[in-house]
């Protein structure tokens, strides 16, 4: 369609055109992202290579002190009078090698097999008795192995940067420039290097509590860690892609594949409806409350906000009781004579699916109401003024001013909501627990999302290998959706978001 046609069409029609366009270009965008991967990986590789080469050049160009820094970290700094920094490097080197030989190397050696000796009784030839022997613990091997790898990586980075710093000190000495002291560098942490100060703690926390666990869990998905291979009594080991094949139904367990497909599709359906209902109805509610001539705005807003303020687990667990087969809602309905038998809100598969979406509206609409309210108040009033003079009615104003404005501002919010709903553990788990359980699923229930299924499989059956595969797939789904939206929105192009 030509641009002129687009400009000539009406508001809703324009929105529809934009929507179809973006859907049509979906495969292209995903393809483009995947196609760009080799280029990006190549770029990463090149910059790595560049770093190695530049350090190599330093070895050629530098004097003997700098060259000696390749063997003794920080020697060049010590030689040029950067005592503080030189000592720190030296200490880092000693500490690293001490750590490596006393701790790291042992765990690394076990990494390829994840342990060879299972715990158990070992026949002692000399004494003629069975002795209790502590075997390898695959879980600890994996964990400490990963920790060792991360520390090695960190050490290599520090090593490379130490050589650069030594060479820099040499160059400054040659040019007879002032060489910064440790005091200067500490002072710089408040100004030029302030980002290092700010980032240190948060990044450390993220590495320990998110990155390390994630690497660990991702590794688990390539092992056979389940209740039959439970350390310390038993060992588990690497199995390659077997778990991924199993969950797609290729591993001989067709039930598992079917369950996965059903739960995945319900997760997507749920996320779609949960997001759209909350968003649309929350917006309508906000528009009504902020409608000109409606009084008690604050009162109505407060009523709805009260429900946000009540902890979700409280309201959800109470709702579960209200909606139970013999709960108050059914008592009320039968007393009024509206139903003969109690409605099985939470125990009938299909009804339960509708119930969770409805209850989720109760939970979520106040949030989107609150947010839309904030945006509505931000729309410049003169826009409405001008449009009224031009003869636009309320409906016209809504479709041409309010809706585009709100949609534009809330697109990132929408996608975070969608991703949040894919991972919406609370509403499902506290309300139905994923149930009603069904024999057609492998350890699953009708309202199970991928995340609740994952939780049940880990806590109940302790099937960690399967759980981590489900986690990875959930991530892939979320990432795909976010990628599409972020790569489209204008803010992405300015490098603000992704």
């Amino acid at each position: 369609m030509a641009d002129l046609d687009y400009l000539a069409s009406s508001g809703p029609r324009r929105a529809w055109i934009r929507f179809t366009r973006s859907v049509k270009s979906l495969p292209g965008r995903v393809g483009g992202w995947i196609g760009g991967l080799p280029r990006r990986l190549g770029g990463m590789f090149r910059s790595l290579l560049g770093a190695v080469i530049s350090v190599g050049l330093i070895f050629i160009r530098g004097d003997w002190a700098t060259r000696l820094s390749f063997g003794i970290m920080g020697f060049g700094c010590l030689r040029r009078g950067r005592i503080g920094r030189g000592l720190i490097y030296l200490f880092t080197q000693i500490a690293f090698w001490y750590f490596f030989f006393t701790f790291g190397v042992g765990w690394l050696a076990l990494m390829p097999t994840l342990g060879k000796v299972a715990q158990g009784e070992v026949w002692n030839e000399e004494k003629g008795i069975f002795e209790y022997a502590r075997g390898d613990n695959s879980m600890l091997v994996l964990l400490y192995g990963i920790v060792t790898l991360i520390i090695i990586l960190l050490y290599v980075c520090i090593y490379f940067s130490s050589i650069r710093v030594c060479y820099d000190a040499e160059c400054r000495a040659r040019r007879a420039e002032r060489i910064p002291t440790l005091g200067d560098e500490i002072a710089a942490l408040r100004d030029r290097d302030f980002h290092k100060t700010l980032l240190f703690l948060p990044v450390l926390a993220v590495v320990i509590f998110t990155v390390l666990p994630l690497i660990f869990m991702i590794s688990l998905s390539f092992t056979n860690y389940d209740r039959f291979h439970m350390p310390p009594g038993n060992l588990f080991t690497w199995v390659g892609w077997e778990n991924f094949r199993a969950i797609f139904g290729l591993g001989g367990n067709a039930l598992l594949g079917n369950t996965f497909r059903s739960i995945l599709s319900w997760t997507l359906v749920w996320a779609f409806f949960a997001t759209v209902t909350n968003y649309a109805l929350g917006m309508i509610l906000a528009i009504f409350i902020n409608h000109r001539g409606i009084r008690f705005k604050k009162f109505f807003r407060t009523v709805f906000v009260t429900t946000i303020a009540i902890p979700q687990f409280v309201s959800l667990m109470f709702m579960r009781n209200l909606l139970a087969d013999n709960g108050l809602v059914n008592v009320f309905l039968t007393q009024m004579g509206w139903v003969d038998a109690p409605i099985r809100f939470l125990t009938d598969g299909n009804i339960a699916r509708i119930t969770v979406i409805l209850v989720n509206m109760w939970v979520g609409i106040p949030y989107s109401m609150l947010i839309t309210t904030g945006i509505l108040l931000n729309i410049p009033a003169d826009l409405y003024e001008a449009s009224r003079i031009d003869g636009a009615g309320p409906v016209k104003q809504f479709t041409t001013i309010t809706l585009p404005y709100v949609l534009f501002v809330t697109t990132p919010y929408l996608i975070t909501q969608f991703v949040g709903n894919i991972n919406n553990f609370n509403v499902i788990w506290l309300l139905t627990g994923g149930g009603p359980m069904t024999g057609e699923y492998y350890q699953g229930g009708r309202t199970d999302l991928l995340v609740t299924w994952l939780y049940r499989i880990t806590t109940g059956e302790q099937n960690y290998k399967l759980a981590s595969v489900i986690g990875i797939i959930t991530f892939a789904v979320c990432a795909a959706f976010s990628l599409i939206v972020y790569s489209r929105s204008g803010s992405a192009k300015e490098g603000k978001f992704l």
Partner: protein
Amino acid sequence: MRLRKNLTRILIYALLTALAVIWLIPIFFLIVHSFRAEPGAAIRYLFPKTYTWNNYVRLFTDTELFNFPRWYLNTLVVSVASCFLSTLYVLMISYAFSRLRFRGRNAMMRAGLILNMFPGFMAMIAVYFILKAVGLTQSLLALVLVYSGSAALTYYVAKGFFDTIPLALDEAATIDGASKSTIFWRITLPLSKPIVVYTVLMSFMAPWMDFIFASVIMKDNYENYTVALGLFQMITRENIYDYFTVFCAGAVVVAIPIALLFLFMQKYYVEGVTGGAVKG
């Protein structure tokens, strides 16, 4: 014309009132049944036959099986500590991303977004193993570390807010000789009250609301339970008959401070969300 306008207005009032009633019904019944004298979860009538304060009294005195006062205190301690840490982390990292330019900034921001998309407790299970390896499981400290640990990943709301503060202020201060650290503490933070309050509010409320992380870490260490875990214990199949009304009372006691806090801070919540994330 006048008539039509009044008609729409009446319709909107009717609709809003109906919705308000629907939204308040569960809360209303929660409060009513926290005063019910008869035990049991499934009863055949809507309103209690006799009313009593006894459930609230039991909540705080009957600590043999369910030590609610202790759990309340636990949750308070955890939420204050983790609130302090997370607020610090979030403000530090989002200021760095918003205002400072350094190598690897974009890569780090992207990494943060990607990490945030993994389901939270997929990492949780591994976090449990890590805590176990260092001997920290089932302790309140572990909870604090875990709640604040991933806080930095939610930098984008605060970053969006910092982006809206005019750069000219920073430049003027730099010309006057202020260091970046001075600018952060003396200029940006005082201007960022809405986002600071928003961050504090969100991270303070998290421990009161969270159920799964606490249950994975605490397992069966009742002493260190938070209120969410404790209340959940009251409505398990064995206890629900005796303790359902006590559960309601407990829920009310938990909800009141949070609700008050939220109602007073509502303004900042809206400013935080709309001023930050959604402007992209």
